[in-house]
């Protein structure tokens, strides 16, 4: 399995037009490297960049953190629970 599963929530799902997608990765990459690949697939996400947070395998991650094939990446707009 060489893909990374991408989950999208809230406004990010709306902008992408999907709640789940997959990005192919050859070996490892950082979240920063993953982002342009994701935007190529779903250009509607581009303007949201500065507002988004990311999680890798269910925990908040920074842009320099590594993503490997088989990981689950979540695209998180500003949370608004409560």
């Amino acid at each position, binding site marked *: 399995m060489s893909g990374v599963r991408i*989950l999208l*929530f*809230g*406004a*990010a799902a*709306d*902008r992408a037009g999907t709640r789940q997608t997959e990005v192919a990765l050859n070996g490892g990459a950082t979240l920063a490297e993953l982002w342009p690949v994701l935007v190529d697939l779903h250009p509607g996400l581009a303007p*949201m960049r500065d*507002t988004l947070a990311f*999680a890798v395998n*269910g*925990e*908040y991650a920074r842009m320099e953190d590594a993503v490997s094939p088989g990981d689950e990446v*979540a695209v*998180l*707009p*500003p*949370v*608004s*629970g*409560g």
Partner: protein
Amino acid sequence: MRLFLIVEEPIDVGAIVTGAFRPDCGAVATFIGTTRVDEGAEVEGAIASVEYLEYEAYRPMADRKLEEIGAEIRERWEVGHVSLVHRLGRVDPGEPSVAIVVASPRRGPAFEASRYAIERIKEIVPIWKREVWSDGYVWVGSQVGTRSVE
């Protein structure tokens, strides 16, 4: 009864509050967030208003974050009981979307911890709400949606 919980059905507030009563605690502070609907504003001759809120979560990360907030509270304050419950799906006006209950020996820590809990929930728990209006919806915090007037 589980103490950190994400539910799809209405929150049983009475059970959650009375479940916090303990003989070693003299103070129970709670916070309950409910769907608020402001008076509709007139836009292009029609009154538009929020009809309900709709919540979604990234699970199980959201469940774990509720538990983390509970652990943070137990580190910072002397508490005998903490319960954090958040609802998903459609929540109608006046209905609770979140319930926080903290019991402590004394009232100061109970008040402080319950306030902390709601601020942290709004900060780190991956839950999102959209306002559903008669003419579309808007994601709160992202201002992205389907309403033409936004």
